[in-house]
């Protein structure tokens, strides 16, 4: 409420200035995109945003990189114009609760489980995520392994909790499980803690590839599992400060042009696609 008042008063202050200086531009240039730390940390926005601003020179995108949970809250309070998040279940609930009308698939990437090179829990060679999570829990209880959780209600954190649940393990907590550590921070910081503590963590492939050089103690112990896929969706926030700008971004990111940018991102640098475009 207070934020809305502030935004409103700011808009009120800036309007006369813009209309007097550039009369031809009625549109507000700033588009607030709330998205995840994973998309920011992987470097995707570094190519995606300039490409959008080239296609729509009237807009300037301001990215707020937070967890998916917080991004949805920013949408709910209309502090963001458009969301690019990866928590499909929470996104559908967001629509059902009436905070937005449409959600479109944009792309997917995948998570990997990384851990210390010595792999004390023996996760390597696990048939699926269920076997991997059970192995980590068992080694953790024996005092041989640690798992670092984001613990910040982000899409990655939500995914991790789903993996424990699917393995029939009650959600671990730092209070009850000494082997389970919760950082409450972004992907980069959490991966850094895992490296320093020789621990396991769940990380999206993009952030892993861009940070692997800084995480010398870690390597992938499980990957390419169906349960590790991660779908991103774009949601336009109705009646936000710059709904038109948000709509323009959403329309553009599912266009053939943007989908091509997404598909090519990372290929030159890492020799593999980080995000697979799948807009319909």
């Amino acid at each position, binding site marked *: 409420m207070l934020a809305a008042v502030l935004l409103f008063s700011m808009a009120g202050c800036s309007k006369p200035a813009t209309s007097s200086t550039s009369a031809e531009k009625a549109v507000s240039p700033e588009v607030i995109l709330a998205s995840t730390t994973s998309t920011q940390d992987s470097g995707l926005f570094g190519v995606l945003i300039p490409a959008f601003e080239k296609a729509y020179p009237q807009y300037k995108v301001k990215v707020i990189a937070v*967890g998916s949970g917080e991004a949805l*809250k920013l949408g709910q309070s209309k502090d963001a114009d458009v969301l690019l998040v990866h928590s499909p279940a929470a996104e559908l609930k967001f629509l059902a609760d009436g905070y937005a009308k449409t959600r479109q698939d944009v792309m997917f990437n995948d998570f990997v489980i990384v851990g210390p090179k010595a792999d004390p829990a023996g996760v390597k060679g696990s048939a699926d995520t269920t076997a991997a999570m059970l192995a980590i829990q068992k080694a953790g209880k024996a005092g041989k392994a640690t798992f670092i959780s984001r613990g*910040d209600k982000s899409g990655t954190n939500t995914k991790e909790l789903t993996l424990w649940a699917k393995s029939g393990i009650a959600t671990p907590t730092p*209070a009850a499980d000494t082997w389970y550590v919760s*950082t*409450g*921070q972004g992907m980069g910081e959490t991966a850094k803690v895992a*490296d320093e503590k020789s621990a396991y963590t769940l990380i999206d492939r993009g952030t892993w590839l861009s940070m692997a050089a800084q995480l010398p*103690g870690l390597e992938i112990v499980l990957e390419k599992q169906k349960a590790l896929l991660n779908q991103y969706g774009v949601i336009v926030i109705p009646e936000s400060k710059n709904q038109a700008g948000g709509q323009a971004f959403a329309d553009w990111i599912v266009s053939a042009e943007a989908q091509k940018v997404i598909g090519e991102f990372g290929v030159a640098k890492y020799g593999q696609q980080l995000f697979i475009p799948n807009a319909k």
Partner: protein
Amino acid sequence: MQIFVDAWSEGWAMLISGSVGVWQIVGTSILLSGTATLLALLIGLPVGYLVGAKRFLGRRAALVIFNAGMGLPPTVVGLVVAMTFSRRGPLGFMNLLYTRPVVVIAQLIIAVPVVMAITAAAVSAVPRDLTLQARSLGAGALRVGALILSEARMGLLAAVAGGFGAIISEVGAVQMVGGNLEGDTRVMTTAMVQFTRQGDYGPALALAVVLMAIVIFVNIVLTGFQTSADHWEAGAR
């Protein structure tokens, strides 16, 4: 204003119900910052006393360094401590990054110059005539030292408050070296950053109120000491 009303009713409920999470974070903050302040006093009081009371070559340079140290940006301390204790750093073999001891070390580095500078200022404010007179009456070095410290006690209390205040409210360094680990290195300031980032304004506001209460309480105690000492001094004269 509804956002404040909602957050406060949620935060207040957490505080009075003794919600383990919130009070545990408060306890961690007091424990870590209190330990760091005690250690800072052990180092800062003697050094600050020597620099404030004695005349020696390089004294001016020492004072400049202390005063510059008071303005040492905590994030710089955090960065250097994090690199030092990182696995690849010179003290990486100790495996201390993201643990409580390293948080105390970083807070100690931030608090020590504050304690030193305030102590030195308080001690040098004690009139030189007083110590000369004491000496002429046959007081030994220890007696003179005790007299100076007793005369400078208001300044020393300010040193305690200054040191504790500098670190209990600090967020950058403690985030960088502690990692905000739940139930371990999560303190009031880093938890407030996290809760705000997640839009959980209730617990964030609850912690804000406790932090404000601690800061105000520390200052009330110190002011109380000061006024009662003034009173005592006035009566004695």
